[in-house]
């Protein structure tokens, strides 16, 4: 894993259960029990952050299921990762949003912005 320790620590301060794995040239941070904005269903979920540029996105945040929320999202990122399907909606971050915690927060804003 090649990420600055301060970013990893920052992520851990925001989310208590964070772990890391890599696959196929991509990095993945698994963050468990993330609380989503109301009225998303489910209210809490695990998420998988891929901070690498892929498929035209600066980063992607994957969910175990397509989350139901008021906003209509384009779930164009269904991908088999490790051992199961994960789902991501189309959400492009600004190029400068490169800190790990910032990426997660910005992606989660996609449910309400």
């Amino acid at each position: 894993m090649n990420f600055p320790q301060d970013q990893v620590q920052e992520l851990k301060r925001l989310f208590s259960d964070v772990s890391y794995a890599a696959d196929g040239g991509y990095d993945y941070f698994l963050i468990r029990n993330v609380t989503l904005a109301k009225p998303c269903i489910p209210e809490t979920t695990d998420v998988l952050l891929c901070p690498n540029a892929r498929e035209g996105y600066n980063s992607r945040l994957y969910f175990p299921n397509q989350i139901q929320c008021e906003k209509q999202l384009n779930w164009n990122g269904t991908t088999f990762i490790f051992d199961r399907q994960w789902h991501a909606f189309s959400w492009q971050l600004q190029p400068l949003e490169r800190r790990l915690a910032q990426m997660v927060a910005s992606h989660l804003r996609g449910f309400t912005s």
Partner: protein
Amino acid sequence: MCDDRYNRQSFLGPDAQEKIEECTVGIIGLGGGGSHIAQQLAHIGFKKYVLYDPDVPEESNLNRLIGLTVKDVEKKIPKIHIARRLILALHPEAKIQAIQKNWQESPNFLKTCNIIFGCVDGYKGRMELEAFSRRFLIPYIDIGIDVHHVDGEPPNLSGQVIASLPGEPCMKCLGFITEQKLQKETQKYGAAGHNPQVVWANGVVASTAVGLATNLLTGWTKAIPEIYLSYEGNLGYMKPHVFLKYTDKACCHYPADQVGEAVFLPL
């Protein structure tokens, strides 16, 4: 059944037939390419199969899906059953796991394979299959055909056969899968369209893939096969892809320790 059944392929080696019969092959996609592969593997003597395809053939498949009949289309017989019928006609005792789903929905059967053939559309689908194969140390052979239209020129028929072997260059190393291609595909999401397909081109790449797999299993040529072959459809031949000259020997995308079940290390 007479032992003479395979005597014309005895050049493959004295224990080749035993290896072939013991090998479990996975075929993802039983359409134009995969149906050729299933047929040829059955003729050679492979007896253990894992087949995945969620689809039911349409009339447009009649131009290329090996074994498909007009009645099958009318009766909406799933593609996996067409392949299964082909195999069982040659080997009534064959062990066939035929799963009418996308492999991602039920991947455990695929783990039992010794060789996996990918006959799927799209770069993302190929990348996922390759990642899975690498993780479970299964040689993966990918085939595909495409037709490019250039204004004022005849259509260009091309294709590929790529063997992605653990430790060897992967499809990203070989420049076949790139982020640009994945991006284009993501942008077209939901508007995939129909890829042009013809039976003879499918047959060429499928046959090449089957020959490559048989060599991999039996070692009959005693020489590691070329892992990236391109099909020049307009000219009618296969040749080693020029990228092979420029590819690093070792793969940087699938390190040796990224195998088995995913282990997330707590931070």
